[in-house]
């Protein structure tokens, strides 16, 4: 009883601190999002001035045509691949930052990791376009160094999309993993080593399990936006760059069919939530 009263008064004193954030979330996210939910059940957008009615047709459209499912699966695969590459590239970097480097050099490397955040996303994508194309920076540089002639034209291909997305999202993985890795007490690692565990065993039995929350958080932060991404595939993917995100964009921008676009977005949201819900017990046990 006493505990309950204490927590209630705790909540009351916390309210002024929470209010701005929740007010902002209500106005900026909840209201527009519920408007979109509403639109997704309409035949026409009220803005268009045409008569409208409620319908489930927009959701039915997803199931009536195989192309939406094909693209959704392609986008999920893209999300998994990009997340995997981010782990492969980001985790070792985070480890070095947290456990190997100290002082000045850590600050400098850390800055390099965060640097991409300071530039506009579109600028980053277009600079990749210059690097990846035939006769571009990568092609020219490699041909200048190598004794034999090779032809590198990665632009407008699936690998180009992966490269662009991994570049954009790898800092998230580095940051989340860095935080959990840094919190691991060095004496735990030393204890493992002094008890005869090899470096690999320490990594497997101590470091990875203890940093799992960071890995999971990073993976979720990356997977969700990548599945819905449309800018990178459109610019870098060429004729292979059609994904679930790009057809949602088409519905909003090219044909002004917001109801269908909204319905497709919520189907994506539902699928992602189901994936995270299914994955979370597994991941929690692993952590």
């Amino acid at each position, binding site marked *: 009883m006493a505990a309950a009263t204490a927590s209630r008064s705790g909540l009351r004193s916390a309210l002024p601190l929470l209010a701005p954030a929740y007010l902002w979330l209500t106005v900026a996210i909840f209201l527009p999002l519920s408007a979109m939910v509403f639109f997704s059940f309409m035949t026409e957008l009220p*803005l*268009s*001035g045409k008569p409208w009615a409620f319908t489930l047709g927009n959701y039915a459209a997803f199931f009536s*045509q195989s*192309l939406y499912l*094909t*693209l959704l699966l*392609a986008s999920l695969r893209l999300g998994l691949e990009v997340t995997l590459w981010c782990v492969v590239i980001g985790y070792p970097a985070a480890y070095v930052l947290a456990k190997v480097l100290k002082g000045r050099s850590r600050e400098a490397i850390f800055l390099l990791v965060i640097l991409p955040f300071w530039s506009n996303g579109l600028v980053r994508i277009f600079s990749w*376009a210059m690097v990846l*194309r*035939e*006769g*571009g920076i990568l092609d020219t540089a490699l041909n200048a160094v190598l004794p034999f002639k090779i032809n590198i034209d990665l*632009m*407008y291909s699936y690998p180009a999309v992966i490269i662009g997305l991994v570049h954009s999202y790898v800092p998230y993985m580095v940051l989340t993993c860095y935080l959990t890795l840094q919190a691991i007490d060095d004496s735990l690692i030393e204890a493992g080593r002094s008890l005869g565990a090899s470096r690999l065993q320490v990594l497997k039995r101590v470091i990875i399990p203890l940093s799992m929350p960071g890995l999971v958080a990073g993976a979720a932060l990356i997977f969700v936006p990548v599945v819905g991404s449309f800018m990178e595939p*459109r610019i870098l*993917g*060429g*004729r*292979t*760059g*059609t994904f679930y995100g790009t*057809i949602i964009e*088409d519905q909003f*921008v*090219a*044909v*002004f*069919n917001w109801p269908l676009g909204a319905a497709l977005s919520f189907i994506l949201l539902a699928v992602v939530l189901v994936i995270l819900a299914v994955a979370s017990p597994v991941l929690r046990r692993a952590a």
Partner: protein
Amino acid sequence: MRMPDLTALLTATAVFTSALAFAAKADEVHVLNWKGYGADEPWAVEAFEKATGNKVVNDFFNSEQEMLTKIRTNPGLYDVVMINAAFNDQAMAGKLIQPIDVSKLPNYADISKDKAGSPMLVHDGKVYGVPWVWGLTALAINDKSFDKPPTSIAEMWDAAHKGRVVIRDDAVEAVQFGAIATGQNINDIKDMDAVKTKLTSLMPQIKTFWSSENDWNQMVASNQIDIGTYWSGSADRAKTHFKLPVSLVVPQEGAVAWLDAFSIPVGAKNVAGAEAFINYMIDPKFYVEWVTKVGAPVSANTKAVEALPEDAFNRKVMGDPEVAKRIQFQAPITDAQREAYLALWQQLKVDVK
């Protein structure tokens, strides 16, 4: 004495600034158009502002749908909007644009009769759009890849150009292009399956789907493409302004023609300014300067085209009666057609992944 002085000064400043602000508001002409499409040329804006005292505020759209959304959701914001004639119907039916008093536009009399009287722009005897320029969606080639310019649309399907062909990421344009390639009327496509088959066989040739002039020019500049669909005005601009090795080809099978026109939205605050701006946009002096400095499509004003040198592309090629016979003007299409075209286009794009 000091305090009242200060108050007086502050009041005077406040009154003065608000008067200024008000004056600026009343004289602003808000223009909605594609970016880099004549109306936002700095020299043109400056000349217009100097001549009329109106201040031009440009805003841009990336698709016709976005343009319609912008005028729909911001009533009273825009004074002039550039609308493709095929969308004029839809804008008028949605009560987004108002009739224009053409007697206020001295240059209107010089607009070619077939364009001024187009049923797409004139409804019940009232003018809802002033024809500005027209052009083609035809083919453009990278001069470096051809000894002799091709004459047939079939060049797009030539295996020699595999992976070096581009087409615009636009469902309507793609389907109409397919209609021309299969010898059909773009406004009355009877055999949709033939269009689909034809486009399906084109997809493996494609390098990428372009969406802006910049995409196209970049790819030619870095010698990544041989041939692709392109707009006539843009091809001219790529050649004259950016000095790129680009030539327009109007294939013997034909090309899609479009007409762009200026309209005044319902609730425009500065109708007089809008009329002055539209009149300036169809003026021969502006047009000649636009063509010379930047490169442009063909003016709807016959006097403006006549003011160009005899061998100018827009006079010689585009004014050629042989070309006129081959081209087909885009007519309005319904929302249902548009969605069907998009579904077809998306299916094609998914199948080629």
